[in-house]
């Protein structure tokens, strides 16, 4: 004999004809005795009936060409990432595939090391260039002063003694020459 709770639980399966014959017979017997279960059974049957009356939702007419599209001009079957060329994008396709390089960026240590290397490569020539340029400027001015002094020596009214002093100044450095300052030859 089936108890009430168990019988109630089996009512849907009984309604659908999904119970083994013995269990179905037991539920049927319980239904004869139990008004509550008969009421529940009727409501379950009505619910199933209402859902079964729902018409087949008709696909919009413009969906058919979209469904047929893969065969009519869509992706190559060998291309798993392929998408139909036309039609609106799928919601499932909206997540872009990750490219390879962001994997490196996901490791902070590698990212910091790479950034430092780039910084170093850029900074070394920059610093060296600046030092060289400053040095060249210094020599350039000295050369100009000496050449100007020699040039002036050809002028008739120039103070030759002063010009000699300037042209032979040991503190003036020529390109490729080391400074003779402090050698005591003046």
């Amino acid at each position, binding site marked *: 004999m089936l108890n009430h709770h168990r019988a109630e*639980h089996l*009512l*849907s*399966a009984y309604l*659908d004809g*999904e119970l083994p014959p013995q269990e179905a017979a037991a539920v049927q017997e319980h239904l004869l005795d139990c008004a509550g279960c008969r009421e529940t059974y*009727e*409501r*379950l049957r*009505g*619910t*199933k*009936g*209402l*859902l*079964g*009356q*729902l*018409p*087949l*939702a*008709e*696909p*919009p007419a413009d*969906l*058919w060409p*979209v*469904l*047929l599209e*893969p*065969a009519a*001009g*869509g*992706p*190559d*079957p*060998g291309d*798993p990432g392929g*998408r*139909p060329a036309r*039609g609106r994008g*799928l*919601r*499932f396709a909206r997540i872009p595939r990750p490219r390879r390089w962001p994997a490196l960026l996901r490791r902070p240590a590698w990212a910091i090391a790479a950034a430092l290397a780039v910084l170093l490569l850029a900074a070394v020539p920059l610093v060296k260039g600046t030092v060289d340029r400053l040095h060249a400027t210094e020599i350039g001015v000295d050369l100009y002063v000496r050449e100007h002094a020699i040039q002036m020596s050809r002028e008739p009214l120039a103070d030759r003694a002063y010009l000699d002093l300037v042209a032979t100044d040991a503190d003036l450095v020529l390109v490729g020459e080391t400074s003779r300052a402090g050698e005591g030859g003046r």
Partner: protein
Amino acid sequence: MARPDAMRAASYTPEELARYEALVQRYGRHVYNIAYRMTGNEADARDLSQEAFLRVYRALRRVEPGAPLESWLYRIVSNLYIDLLRKRPRHRVESLDVPLETPRGELARELPDVAANPEAIFEREQIDGTIQQALGTLSEELRMVAVLSDVEGFSYEEIATILHVPLGTVKSRLHRARQILQDRLRPYLEARRRGWEA
């Protein structure tokens, strides 16, 4: 360089393409119907159907001609539906008898007054809308079983295959789904019963 058409022809034969088209013709409506009843809206149903058939297209060669495709195809649809739900914020389950909260205060939901206008409830569209709404209040697990069983008419065994769950789970979920639905649809059930008795 080969033309795209020629490349495609080399991948799928005209017979295979014709087979794909036949599958769309045969199952398209049911795939869309299941998708629509599960999601409750056209835009999502379209997307699910399109993605499901794209998968069929890609796997066409692995599908034996003449093999029953229904379980496989509807499993694709239900898996896609679950994927769709995972990608979105969880659906809020709404009870029809709880007032709707709006910025201008609470608003009672307008449910058809069965006693005042019994004829109105038999208007087809209204009933469909209310049943769809009631389906929407079920959890996705219960909704899928209810749709496959009571809307599409699959057996418990077929549903167990489609959803990859034990037979007993189908049985209990369906019973639970119908219990909730019968509460939601009570006015319609009573009117229907009165209609039978009259």
